[in-house]
């Protein structure tokens, strides 16, 4: 299983560093040939984001057949392209989000006569999880415990920020609801007025029409 190969490599890397830190595994999903699948994530502006993708080989140890290559496109919510990989087996990307919104990463495989299912392993991390802790550990000569506590502190800060964001969104939604409520009241009142005025107009017009025709 390629997942275990990834794990072994990671284990070796960590052993050499001598630091306990989090090994991240990734999301794995299937892609039918000739179709595309998009994954999107909400990223706030000025947040770091790193992504890594690999095509899992269907047979262990053998090189990846050409039919299993994918085309990748990472787009910002306004349509700017941050990463483009054409017919690749694996790749990675990193960027700092310029605008906040939903960033999409789309995978596409070309269609073949024999429909194949391509398995893609995709790891996309933003914000706290995207921070490169191995650099922090090396630079400051920090202890393991201190590193872990630093990570926890970062997590707590991000939770705090997220709460502020949720509060803001809730405020916006209340605003929206209040405006919908008042709009509904105004529009219903106007609808009543229009109904009565249309009926009145009809009545007045038909009355003058019949009086002109000398029927009334």
């Amino acid at each position: 299983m390629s997942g275990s190969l990834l794990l072994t490599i990671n284990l070796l890397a960590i052993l050499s560093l001598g630091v306990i830190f989090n090994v991240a595994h990734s999301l794995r999903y299937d892609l039918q040939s000739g179709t595309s699948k998009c994954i999107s994530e909400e990223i706030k502006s000025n947040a770091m984001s790193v992504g890594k993708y690999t095509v899992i080989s269907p047979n262990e140890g053998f090189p990846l057949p050409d039919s299993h290559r994918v085309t990748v496109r990472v787009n910002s919510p306004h349509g700017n392209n941050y990463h483009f990989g054409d017919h690749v087996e694996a790749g990675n990307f990193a960027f700092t989000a310029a605008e906040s919104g939903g960033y999409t990463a789309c995978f596409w495989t070309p269609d073949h006569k024999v429909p194949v299912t391509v398995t893609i392993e995709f790891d996309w991390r933003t914000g706290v999880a995207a921070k490169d802790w191995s650099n922090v550990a090396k630079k400051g000569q920090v202890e393991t415990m201190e590193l872990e506590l630093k990570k926890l502190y970062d997590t707590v800060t991000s939770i705090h920020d997220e709460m502020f964001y949720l509060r803001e969104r809730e405020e916006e939604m209340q605003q929206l609801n209040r405006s919908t409520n008042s709009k509904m009241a105004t529009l219903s009142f106007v609808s009543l007025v229009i109904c009565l005025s249309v009926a009145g107009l009809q009545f007045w017009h038909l009355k003058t029409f019949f009086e002109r025709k000398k029927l009334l």
Partner: protein
Amino acid sequence: MEVRSEKKMWMVLVMVTLSLVGKISSLSVTVNEVECVYEYVLYEGDTVSGNFVVVDHDIFWSSDHPGIDFTVTSPAGNVVQTLKGVSGDKFDFKAPRSGMYKFCFHNPYSTPETVSFYIHVGHIPNEHDLAKDEHLDPVNVKIAELREALESVTAEQKYLKARDTRHRHTNESTQKRVIFYTLGEYLLLAIASGLQVIYIRQLFSKSVGYNRV
């Protein structure tokens, strides 16, 4: 040396929608369409927790769409957890064995749905791991527990954010509907009364015949 590894998942929106959205073409969801995601659990006994929310689009016509089905299958092939006909829920379970777990969303209806989900696999080293590795402090267990608690807070926040997004879609759609349907109602009222007047005038026009009515 023991490596304590933890899997962090993030919140993703799996676009299971059609090119109705426009620039993104993806799998078209027809009846009995399934979308599966695989996640590797390293240790037996790890707690797998997560949540998912169906984020409605303007495509929805009936407010009582029953929702989607969610199934978790263990590497052995048996179903660990299943939720039927929900529009979003939290879940957590203790992994009976390590391996590749499959998380599947099943949409029983023909309208495409967008699902926003978050899966987290948490591992807390226990006494067995402590005994195996001399570098592992008992404090690390406490730190791991603390980290797991914080992760559960983060997961809850992501769940709330997804629900807030769905709520916002509903509210925006409500406002749009209020405005457009009311304006359409005015227009139709004016047209209907105009047609009425024209018809009555026609009934009384001389060319048809005086006193025909």
